[in-house]
């Protein structure tokens, strides 16, 4: 950019070239736009009041909704575009040396300011809140932290997140890798990859509903409508309540009791407190269903990046496919494996939707994020909720840093 500075003539740097008219016009338009935006905001707050003139909000809710939606989109997008444009127009009309200072900040400040406001500042504030009581009034020191690390529910939540982390991430990575390798050598690679990848488009809530139809249990005497239990019954077994969520199984008396399949598990699982955690696995399956596609896509790209000569040379030397897989392919894509694993680990630490939708109220399946929500909206203990959030932050940071380091070493595009 130094070249541009020297190319400007002396004239351009002087005050006489400043177009005050432009600046004033720009400022005026900016003020007008902001006012219009404010009016739009008022409209969006209570739209029904303003439209009663030409449509009836109660009779035509769909029309009302469409109007609001369209208006909201235009207001948000166009409004912001116009503001940007005007700001730049003002900046361009300024004297040169002012322009040099102002323009970068026009470009950077919206993003930075919003970031600081939505993420940076809240971090500080949340950390602060974690040292206060439930209504954020009295200072309580480390009390919240003590509670978080000793309360039974929180410890269960930690254990559950650990299960999610270990099994969710491992299974996703392994399955993703296997499928990527298989697809790489198969004829209908594209189709297979699309199918496996499809669940990524589905929301966690939707996935919960879909898998509900697989897990649902009905009383023994009536026909099973869940796929898993129907298969069990065909083979002569009793239908089981896989996730024991009360809202699914109104007909079956099973809230909290030991399930038949749980009783069949070995003793040591019970002793180590893993028995109650068994319900988590069926939720983790859903998670793997969603994430394995993600893992597969990245692994597939990475596998294709392995130079063919390397593999050919190994084959010529007589190495078996297994050897090639474990000794050449995996080390070559190790960076991607780490990135994928860390990303899925972070996702499993933050898991919320599946557990909330499918495991409502069931203590054995609560995780950190659902507990956080519980404290905010149900128990209304802001201090504790903040503490949980901080714990989540601390848990995620090292993984994230590792992830970023690996990521920055790869080619982005």
């Amino acid at each position: 950019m130094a070249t541009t500075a020297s190319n400007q003539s002396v004239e351009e740097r002087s005050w006489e070239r400043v177009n005050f008219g432009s600046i004033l016009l720009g400022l005026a338009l900016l003020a007008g736009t902001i006012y219009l935006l404010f009016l739009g905001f008022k409209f969006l707050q209570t739209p029904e009041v303003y439209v009663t003139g030409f449509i009836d909000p109660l009779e035509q809710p769909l029309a009302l909704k469409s109007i609001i939606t369209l208006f909201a989109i235009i207001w948000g997008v166009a409004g912001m575009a116009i503001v940007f444009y005007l700001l730049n127009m003002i900046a361009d009309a300024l004297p040169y040396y002012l322009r040099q200072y102002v323009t970068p900040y026009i470009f950077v400040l919206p993003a930075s300011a919003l970031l600081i406001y939505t993420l940076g500042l809240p971090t500080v504030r949340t950390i602060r809140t974690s040292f206060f009581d439930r209504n954020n009034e009295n200072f309580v020191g480390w009390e919240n932290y003590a509670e978080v690390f000793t309360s039974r529910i929180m410890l269960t939540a930690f254990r559950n997140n650990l299960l999610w982390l270990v099994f969710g991430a491992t299974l996703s990575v392994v399955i993703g890798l296997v499928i990527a390798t298989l697809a790489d050598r198969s004829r209908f690679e594209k189709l297979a990859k699309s199918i496996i990848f499809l669940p990524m488009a589905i929301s966690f809530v939707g996935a919960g509903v879909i898998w509900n139809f697989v897990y649902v249990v009905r009383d023994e005497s009536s026909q099973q409508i869940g796929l898993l239990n129907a298969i069990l019954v065909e083979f002569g077994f009793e239908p089981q309540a896989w996730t024991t969520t009360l809202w699914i199984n109104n007909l079956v008396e099973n809230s909290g009791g030991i399930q038949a399949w749980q009783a069949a598990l070995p003793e040591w699982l019970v002793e180590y407190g893993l028995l109650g955690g068994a319900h988590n696995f069926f939720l983790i399956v859903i998670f793997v269903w969603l994430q394995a596609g993600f893992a597969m896509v990245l692994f597939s790209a990475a596998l294709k990046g392995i130079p063919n000569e390397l593999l050919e040379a190994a084959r010529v030397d007589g190495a078996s496919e297994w050897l090639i897989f474990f000794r050449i392919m995996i080390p070559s894509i190790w960076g991607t494996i780490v990135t994928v694993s860390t990303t899925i680990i972070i996702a499993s630490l933050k898991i919320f939707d599946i557990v909330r939708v499918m495991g409502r109220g069931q203590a054995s399946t609560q995780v950190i994020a659902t507990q956080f929500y519980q404290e905010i909206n149900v128990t209304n203990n802001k201090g504790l909720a903040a503490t949980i959030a901080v714990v989540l932050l601390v848990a995620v940071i090292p993984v994230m840093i590792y992830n970023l380091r690996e990521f920055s070493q790869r080619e982005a595009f």
Partner: protein
Amino acid sequence: MSTKARNTLNQVLINGSLTIICILWTIPTIGVFISSFRTRFDIQTSGWWQVFPHREWQMTDELADEDLPRDFDIDIPFAIPAVGDVEYSFDEWREGVETPDGKRVQWIGNKRLGRVEIQEEVWTSALATEPVWEQTLLLEGDDLNREFDNDAPFAIAQVGPDEFTFDEWREGVETADGKRVQWVGNKRIGRLEVQEEVDRIQLTFDNYRNVLTGKNFEIKDAEGNVKTERGPDMSGAFLNSLAVTIPATIIPISFAAFAAYAFAWMRFPFRRALFIMVVAMLVVPLQIALIPLLRDFNGLNINGTFLAIWLAHTGFGLPLATYLFYNYISALPRETLESAFIDGASHFTVFMRLILPLSMPAIASFCIFQFMWVWNDYLVALIFLGGQNKVVTMRLAEIVGSRGNDWHLLTAGAFVSMILPLIVFFSLQRYFIRGLLAGSVKG
């Protein structure tokens, strides 16, 4: 084995296992898709796989009550005389006993009140049902010829040429073409009902219709009772999702693109510090931000509105967007930009005319990625939206929570929430994957 044979075997193994995996993978989704077209009663009583033709034992006959032995000992095998001489235990009768002529005899119910069915195995599907009598025609008022003699047989033109007396018409007449016709009421103001046996296919769009509406709708349950329920208004939620997602995708892109350009190609004080701050924000889980933002929004009185969630999603999406665009923009060829500056273009012009078009791949990738993320988001919407502004994920979770037994709504609702992301996914898969490859940083 020769290499060629081994290769073929390998191919078969690979393709075969891949096919199996793919089928297993899509089964849950297909199940829900099929279920979304079934009636509520069907969903509650039979699995969706029964829609496909399969063999099933269906009752063809029932033994008369007096033919059933009632005073037997449930531990001792006994025979049912009407069926044969062979003795089976009560449990065996209850499971069903196959007779030599290919039928099955099964005791349904308990010892005192149960009954015995004779069953045959038939090909059937949950789609086809017994034909039912449905009214297809109703003639009233002036449509009917009322100038007839009560005692003489007469024909009714709309039905056919056959003549019957008025009493016969009132009792009900079966015509040659399989219709049932009945005169209801007296000669002067009565009406004529025509019924036909109709094969009912049990597929319906009702679930979709009912889940989309916000008004009351009627539904028939198993006994034929009609109930009125309120629809969960998914169509409104769909519009809300659009209203939330589109700005939440476009606004972060523009903010981030501007900032990324500045970071990449401009020099200004605090550049490095600001950039590090942006990247550092990638680390922060959004739960951290929720409490303070909630407090602020309550104070500003915008809680529950679209503006609140736009701010939140824009903020949460900015670190990744800025990082991605920075990587891409800083890799653009220097000469192109420099020649533009030499020609006297301002930063803004260069940005709009050069950078934006050149960065389209990165922008498209992030756009899809963010769109999916925001559309499928549940937590942020749950915290910041309320009342009329609920999005599809929230509505779906609501149906799950409060109307967990309304499965017909759940299936249709799930697909309503998924249809748009699926379309986006299929048409723009390439960009989505690119976005993933570059953006795997976002947890």
